[in-house]
Structure formats: C-alpha cells, structure tokens
C-alpha cells in the first residue's frame, strides 16, 4: 500500500507511526511515500524556522516532504490513497482525483456534528457526550464526504481540549489501520452524512476564549442571574450556552492548552484610578455545596489558578490577597 499523508501538528504523529508500522514492506520500506505539511515558519524571539511535527517525522524516516499538495500531481508521486489529519489547508480538486481510493479524512467528531476546524473544543463546550471520530472519504465540500467509519469516545470530567484531542487521534490511529485493508478491497459501505443535522465549529482565536466577567462572577458564588440565560459562543455557528457553573467549567477546559479562557478584571492603581486588565483562567473545578437552612443544594465554580496580564500564574487565593479590590463587574 502506498500512502501520502497530509497533516501538520504533533498530535497526528500516532497516525503516521501506526501506518508506518502496520504496512511496512518486508524489505522495511515505509508505506508513507510522501507527506504534505505546512511549510516551516519563523517562530519565537529569534525568529528561527520552526518545522512542523510531521515535517520532522518525515525527515527522520527519510520520507519526501512537500509543502504544496499540487506538487504530488506535478511530480507524479505514485500513491494509492491519501490520509489527512489536521492539515490546515484546502486540497485542490486535481489532487483529490489523483488518488485511486481517494483521500480519507480523520475528523475528531461524530459527523455531521461539528464540521470545520474546532470539533474537539465544541464537543466539550456543548457537552456532546460521547463524542468521537469520523473517518470520511473527502469530497469537494468541507467535512461533507461519506462516512467510512466512526467510533465513540466518552468525554471525561477533567478532559481538556488537549487531552481529549490527543486521545481521539491516538485511538483513530488503531481504527484506521484496522479498516484500511477492508476499505481498499471495497468491503465497506460508505454512509452519506445527514446534512440537515450538520453543525459547525470554526477556527478559534484568542478573542473566542473571553468569558464575560459578570457571568464568571455569578457562578463563582454558586449563583446565577435569571437575566443572564444566553451566552453566545462565536466560533460555534449559531450556538449559545446557558451560563452556569457547569458550562463555565466546560468552557475553561475546552480552551486548554490554547487559547486559554480569560476575562476582564478591574483593579485600582496607586492614585485610585480604576484600570482594567486581562485575567487568564488557567484552572478551575466544580464544587457541590450542600443544602443549608436557607439555601438549596448548588454547584459552584471554584477558580484554582489565574494569571494577570504581564504577571506569573498564581493561585486564586494569592491573587485575591494581592488585589483585594479586584472586581468583575462588566
């Protein structure tokens, strides 16, 4: 089997490793005949070129590296099938048609749920449990192609975007290797996606990780305001949360390790002028409050670690000691 792999970040390496091990020829030749990945980018203070994880993997395993999918066709690289996971660019039609068995896309959600680029944080935020992975055959629309196989995976209570994503890709490596021979033989019936149930989660940026301060404050005390019952999540198309300790806890986990949830906090400077700064919420957890004489049982959000812009991470307790005047009104 000759495979061309399209992908970029570290967390897709298990897929490359599994394919490499499972379909190695008797003479030790890799089934991966080429990788297509994002070109190295200058990064950090010294602006040194940073190579993608897939680039580094291919270099180590003596596999040819391309930065433009079209080169596969131009250079006539012989391959049966393409496998794509977190590639980060569009595949031209000519490249798609170049493969006899098409390109299989590994997408970490149960499609048609959460098409586009942020399915994992979207599943955590919306409490779509179980979520899972879909392996689809690429067609000319984004994340629209027929489903070859799917598997489900429970979201754990302490899962973050990072931990869940790594687990989903690691498991999909085994699933992909298990189904590829049957797929090539044409023994798998592909299933069209039900477009009427499609939902969409676009790219996340730092601004998407913002928590309105009044929402955060209301649940840190184990209460909520009846007025605040809708919190729009911009990167999930057409979706809103009901603010609560539960949804904020999920939101904070869904933004780890990147872009990290943040809010605005008002502090007063030496001359008593109020200044507003960004406060990152690094870690939080839920705590059940038992019923007392006058209060029903409730669940509150407890902040563990925070980081004020320009400062080091500190515990929530340390932060309040350092800034007793801090307030979170909008």
């Amino acid at each position, binding site marked *: 089997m000759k495979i061309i792999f399209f992908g970029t970040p570290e967390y897709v390496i298990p897929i490359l490793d599994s394919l490499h091990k499972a379909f190695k020829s008797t003479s030790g030749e890799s089934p991966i005949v080429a990788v297509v990945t994002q070109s190295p980018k200058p990064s950090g203070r010294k602006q040194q070129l940073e190579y993608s994880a897939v680039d580094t993997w291919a270099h180590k395993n003596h596999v040819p590296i391309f930065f433009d999918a079209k080169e596969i066709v131009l250079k006539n690289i012989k391959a049966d099938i393409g496998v794509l996971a977190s590639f980060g660019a569009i595949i031209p039609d000519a490249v798609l048609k170049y493969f006899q068995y098409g390109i299989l896309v590994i997408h970490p959600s*149960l499609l*048609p*749920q959460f098409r586009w680029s942020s399915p994992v944080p979207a599943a955590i935020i*919306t*409490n*779509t*449990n*179980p979520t899972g992975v879909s392996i689809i055959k690429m067609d000319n629309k984004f994340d629209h192609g027929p489903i070859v196989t799917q598997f*489900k995976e429970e979201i754990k209570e302490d899962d973050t975007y990072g931990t869940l994503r790594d687990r989903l890709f690691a498991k999909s490596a085994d699933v992909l290797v298990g189904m590829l021979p049957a797929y090539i033989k044409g023994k798998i019936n592909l299933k069209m996606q*039900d477009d*009427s*149930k*499609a*939902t969409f989660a676009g790219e996340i940026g730092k601004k998407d990780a913002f928590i309105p301060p009044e929402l955060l404050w209301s649940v840190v005390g184990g209460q909520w305001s009846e007025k605040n*019952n*809708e919190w*729009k999540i911009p990167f*999930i198309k*057409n*979706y*809103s*949360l*009901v603010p*609560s300790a*539960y*949804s904020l806890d999920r939101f904070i986990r869904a933004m780890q390790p990147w872009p990290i949830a943040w809010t605005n906090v008002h502090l007063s400077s030496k001359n008593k002028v109020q200044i507003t700064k960004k406060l990152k919420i690094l870690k939080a957890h839920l705590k059940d409050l038992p019923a007392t004489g006058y209060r*029903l049982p*409730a*669940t509150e959000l407890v902040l563990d670690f925070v980081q004020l812009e320009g400062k080091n991470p500190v515990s929530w307790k340390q932060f309040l000691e350092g800034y007793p005047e801090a307030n979170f009104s909008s």
Partner: protein
Amino acid sequence: MIREILDAKDKRLRGKSKTVAVIDKKVQTLIKDLKDTLVVQNDPDGIGLAAPQIGKNIMIFVMKPGKEIKTVINPEVVFISKKKEQAQDDQKKNIMEGCLSLPHFYGNIKRSQKIKIKFLDEKGQAHIQTFNGLDAQIVQHEIDHLNGRLFIDELIKQKKPLFEYKNGEWEEVEL
C-alpha cells in the same frame, strides 16, 4: 440559534414555568431556538423539547414525532385517559422513554394513551387536539417539564428501573 440543553442536574429544570402572555418577538425567537436545537439532535434523535430545557421557564414546547414540528404554547389538559400503558412502535415493540436532558438513559414508563389538550400555536391560534400513543407520551413528558418534573420522577413513582445505553449495551443503574 442552537441552545445548550440543560443537564438533569440543573435546578432550572425544577422550576415551574410561567404562562406566555403575548407571543412577541422574544417568544418567536425562543420558539425558533427550540426548533433549531431539536432538529440537530442525533444521538439520540430528539422528538420533543421544552423551554425549561434551554433555561427558560415559560410554557412552550416543540414536538417532532415525524417530519413535522409542532409548537405548543400554554397547554391545558382537557382530558386524559385513566388507563396507562407503554407506547409501542409500528412493529408493536415497546418504546422506552428518554430525555435530551438525560441522554442515553431510558425507562419503561406507562403513560396515558390518550390526552386532549387546549393550547396556542406559534401564531396565537387556539386549538383543542387529541393525541394518541407515542404523541400522547411526548405531550405528557413535555408538560411534566413545564411543571418542573422529569421522567425519572415518574419512573420512581412507577417503581421501574432506569437503564443506561452505553457502547451498544444496556445497563441497569441506581436511581
């Protein structure tokens, strides 16, 4: 807008819903949100959704037993049959009852097989309609939501076990 469906633990599901006084823009938006949210549910598929489930304690629910979505505002029970049975599908198999606020949990609940309600549709037109079988079951389940009740309350009352459907298998769970 697709709205978050509250989990059964959330207190807002236990509140009593208020009657809708006017079907204004806000109410129309809420109805649209209920529909948008119901149709995209696919694990499990949704057949009914009440306003408290998306955090609004007002008397509205939508139901989708087949292709069509029906909106029910301010339902009042006119008649309900005394005899309770479990609803059945076309193949005469019993249908277990579940809830989008408690996904993947089901129970064998007996419900009245006939219910007649008075209600307003989304245009404010009054209707009196009789629902049978599965439709009657949905109506009773959704009216319970408007009264702050969940199907697990009914299970406890009927002394029936709760089952979780997980990884293709059924498992009995403690209530």
